[in-house]
């Protein structure tokens, strides 16, 4: 009774300003009001000032012509047709493209480095340690500067003079590599692919159940993969067999530009009318030419760290593409005593004067001597200019091409009386294997797929930088598994790989995954440094647009919302994975 009395009394006697609940709510209220008032003040200022200096706060400008060139885009983008919103989306996709591939590669390199650091080979351990300690203490921006500005730009040769990689080429615009283009017939393969996927999932669950019931170690993935590969391969051959071309498919060749167009010849007049007739993409053709010539005027050219004198360049033509080719002077009377040296037969080379008579090109022989310069009265220091013009004659030229998204592809612009350029269709299939080619002497790659230098520089820098952090995380995770676990696993008779896969790895994963998630998010955010190598990712595109459209404020809001979207989506997906790992580990 008395206790209750006291309790009641004290409850009544607590003044409101000493009641924890009241104080708490009061503090929250004041805090909320302060935050809101502060925000309102800032927003109000932005609105007033924006109106004053006449910058837009709306989003209308998103639907106006972009007019900004973007050097690469995973989706069709034309600055004269598409709107700002498309340009922003392209930037967003470019960010995703570099981040997602970067995550996979960084994981591989990071785990590899971690294993190197844990290996029993002293040299490997030291190499891995050096790599980690150097790379993670240098800012990513500086590393991108290294890959792009220091390494790629000065050392990669221009256009067709690039390094020949057999099927592709590496030059100052990037790596051009062959690429399968899907055609209209790819639809025929699609049901098989879906079927294969469904079958693989069913096989996986059945096999896993079997393994669990049999109580023996085993891996369900092998059979799953096998089922998927077999069914999809069979499907591909069936689809390949049933592939056909659309009715009335025709090819048009325009001699003035060397352009082939694949189109539906609706009116069957065997002529292509660009306005009314529809083009068809991804048609594989074999283009042929009997005899044609190309011309080139020799000039000076700046290469990596030297000047190349008296250099001529033709559109890149490979040895396997012709029966006979020859480069000659158009005016032999001007070129007495001069010879031709090929850097890459027959497309790239230099004119030189064989002064020492050894029959090969030696250093300095492509430059004129001082006496020659004095005698001719022209100041050029090489055998350059219209007088030394050369021509390449090619016989029986043949090139495999695939028309691109516009239904077009190009050949070098051959001239001559019996060129007889023609093309025949290759047999239809779900995919057309397109090789890159250089129909002009500088850049302008046709076909294939190009990984630009900017993309490669950003990707390499991101992967190498992030992998050095991932390596330390993985190493820490593996080391954190107590030694007793390993010994116990060996005691129950597991072998080395079983010990690692079944005992060490699952326990290490639990520790490794959460910091890995934050490294993946860092990688995605760090891709915004693509602006240091002119890679048109989300931030770079936003920056250009801000300078141009006047919509700075809305653009910044879109930018931050976009990155938040990426971060939240990634962390959501990765956390699902993390939770699954936790459950498995128990």
């Amino acid at each position, binding site marked *: 009774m008395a206790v209750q009395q006291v309790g009641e009394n004290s409850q009544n006697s607590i003044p409101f300003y000493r009641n924890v609940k009241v104080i*708490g*709510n009061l*503090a*929250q*209220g004041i*805090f*909320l009001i302060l*935050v809101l008032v502060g925000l309102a003040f*800032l*927003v109000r*200022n*932005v609105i007033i*000032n*924006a109106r004053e200096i006449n910058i837009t706060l709306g989003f209308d400008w998103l639907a106006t012509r972009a007019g900004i060139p973007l050097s690469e885009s995973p989706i069709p983008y034309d600055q004269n047709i598409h709107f700002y919103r498309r340009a922003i989306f392209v930037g967003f996709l470019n960010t995703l493209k570099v981040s997602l591939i970067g995550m996979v590669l960084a994981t591989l390199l990071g785990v590899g480095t971690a294993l190197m650091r844990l290996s*029993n*080979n*002293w*040299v*490997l351990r030291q*190499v891995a340690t050096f790599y980690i*300690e*150097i790379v*993670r*203490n*240098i*800012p*990513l*921006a*500086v590393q991108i*500067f*290294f890959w792009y*500005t*220091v390494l790629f730009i*000065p050392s990669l040769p221009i256009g067709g003079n690039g390094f020949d990689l057999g099927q592709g080429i590496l030059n100052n615009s990037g790596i051009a590599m062959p690429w399968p283009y899907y055609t209209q017939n790819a639809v025929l393969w699609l049901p098989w692919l879906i079927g294969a996927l469904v079958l693989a999932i069913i096989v996986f669950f059945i096999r896993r159940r079997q393994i669990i019931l049999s109580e023996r170690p085993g891996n369900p993935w092998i059979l799953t993969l096998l089922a998927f590969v077999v069914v999809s391969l069979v499907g591909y051959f069936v689809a390949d067999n049933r592939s056909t071309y659309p009715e009335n498919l025709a090819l048009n060749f325009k001699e003035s530009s060397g352009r082939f167009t694949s189109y539906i010849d609706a009116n069957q007049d065997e002529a292509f009318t660009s306005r009314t007739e529809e083009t068809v993409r991804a048609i594989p053709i074999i283009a042929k030419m009997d005899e044609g010539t190309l011309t080139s005027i020799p000039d000076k050219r700046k290469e*990596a*760290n*030297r*000047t190349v004198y008296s250099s001529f360049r033709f559109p890149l033509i490979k040895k396997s593409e012709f029966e006979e080719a020859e480069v000659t002077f158009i005016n032999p009377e001007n070129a007495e005593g001069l010879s031709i040296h090929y850097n890459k037969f027959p497309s790239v080379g230099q004119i030189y004067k064989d002064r020492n008579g050894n029959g090969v090109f030696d250093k300095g022989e492509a430059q004129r001597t001082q006496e020659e310069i004095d005698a001719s009265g022209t100041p050029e220091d090489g055998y350059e200019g219209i007088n030394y013009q050369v021509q390449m004659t090619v016989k029986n030229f043949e090139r495999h091409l695939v028309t691109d998204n516009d239904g077009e592809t190009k050949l070098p612009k051959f001239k001559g009386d019996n060129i007889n350029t023609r093309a025949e269709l290759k047999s239809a299939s779900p995919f057309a294997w397109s090789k890159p080619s250089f129909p002009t002497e500088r850049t302008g790659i046709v076909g294939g797929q190009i990984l630009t230098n900017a993309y490669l520089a950003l990707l390499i820098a991101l992967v190498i930088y992030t992998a050095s952090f991932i390596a330390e995380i993985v190493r820490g995770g593996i080391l954190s598994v107590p030694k007793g676990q390993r010994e116990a696993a060996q005691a129950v008779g597991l072998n080395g790989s079983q010990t690692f896969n079944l005992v060490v790895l699952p326990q290490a994963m639990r520790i490794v995954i959460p910091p890995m998630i934050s490294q993946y998010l860092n990688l995605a*955010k*760090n891709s*915004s*440094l693509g*602006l240091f190598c002119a890679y048109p990712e989300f*931030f770079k595109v*936003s*920056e250009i647009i*801000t300078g141009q459209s006047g919509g*700075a*404020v809305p653009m*910044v809001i879109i*930018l*931050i919302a976009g*990155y*938040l979207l990426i*971060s*939240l989506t990634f962390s959501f997906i990765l956390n699902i994975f993390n939770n699954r790992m936790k459950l498995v580990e128990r």
Partner: protein
Amino acid sequence: MAFQPQPARPSPQPTSGFGFWLRQNIFNSPLNSIISLLMIILISWSLFNLVTWIVAESDWQIVWNNQRLLAVFQYPSDLLWRPMTCIIIIMSLFGLNAGVSNEGIGHIIRRAFYWILGLIVIIAIVALVYWESVRLYWVIAALLPIVFFFIGNAIPQIAKFLSWGWVLLWFVCTFILVGFGGGHGHESTSPMRYVNPNLWGGMLLSFFLSITGIVLCFPIGIGLALGRESKLPIIRTICTGYIEILRGSPLVSWLFLASVMLPLAINATPAGIIRAQVAIILFAAAYMAENVRGGLQALPKGQGEAAHALGLSPWDTTSIIILPQALRAVIPAIVGLFIGLFKDTSLVLIVGLVDIFAMLNQIANQPDATLVAGGILKELFIFGSLFYWFFCYRMSIASRQLEKQLGLGTR
């Protein structure tokens, strides 16, 4: 039957010495031997190329010619004594701090001090030979810290004032660097005249932005961390939202936001350095909050409850029981954050500031560099990398030692 001694067993493999070490670490299996040999050949080849390049081809003239721009950008040349004074004050306090103790964390501080002092001694020697205008200051910067080191050694009681010294130091140095008085720097010749922040740059800017960032983000970060751990739902939501939004978007986007929106939002156009600094502080605060929160969560619950039971007010509980312990536990993480910030200052180039990285980019485009065939890029890159690498590496060593010292990572 004659006595037949058993043949002696072969002598055991030595378990020490260089040969044993080689067998154990480099040639311990056929595969490892091959890998080791290949790697050794590869490394020797790269080292050989590197050394020949450094000896025969590299040309450091351009870095040397631009030394002042790289160090302080356009900070007035007659006022160079001001950044130099800051270096002297900072190093003196560092020396005092290092001299006080050689136990535990004190040992780590002392090791770091030796490193930095070594660097300054080297620079001082270079200054003695080449840099007439700042010769004296560099020599003082190399000698005075040693004096203070011994003072600290002699009077260890000074330790309790040191943390206040560091806090005060930031204000003093900022004041010395900025100066006072209105108007433009070029009109006045006063030694303490105001220096337009647009003239700051180079290494000075990199250091200033990162140090100011870490100092000023500290109180905000602690507040946010406490807010996120608080039981009051509105405060918790707001703090969590702030932290997650700031961390969800890269620093470049916040720098960009600050340079575009800040002038509109506060009705004034602050200098670029202030805009960048605001973005860096607000961004770092979110990361600082997460670090501090880690410390708060690692703290046993009983600490707070015991303080409560003793009758301490919530304020006292937080400020003298919880925070000191929590912050102590996250010192390595804060050093890590500082390394990150220091590296991130290389991004301020996008808002038009000229830190050392931006300066290197500018030099790469100078005629002196571009007229040389291939451009002088490798030297610039190596110089910039070494600058960042030295400080970041030194700090990461300290961070790892601290971690060991504080018994983290062994949980």
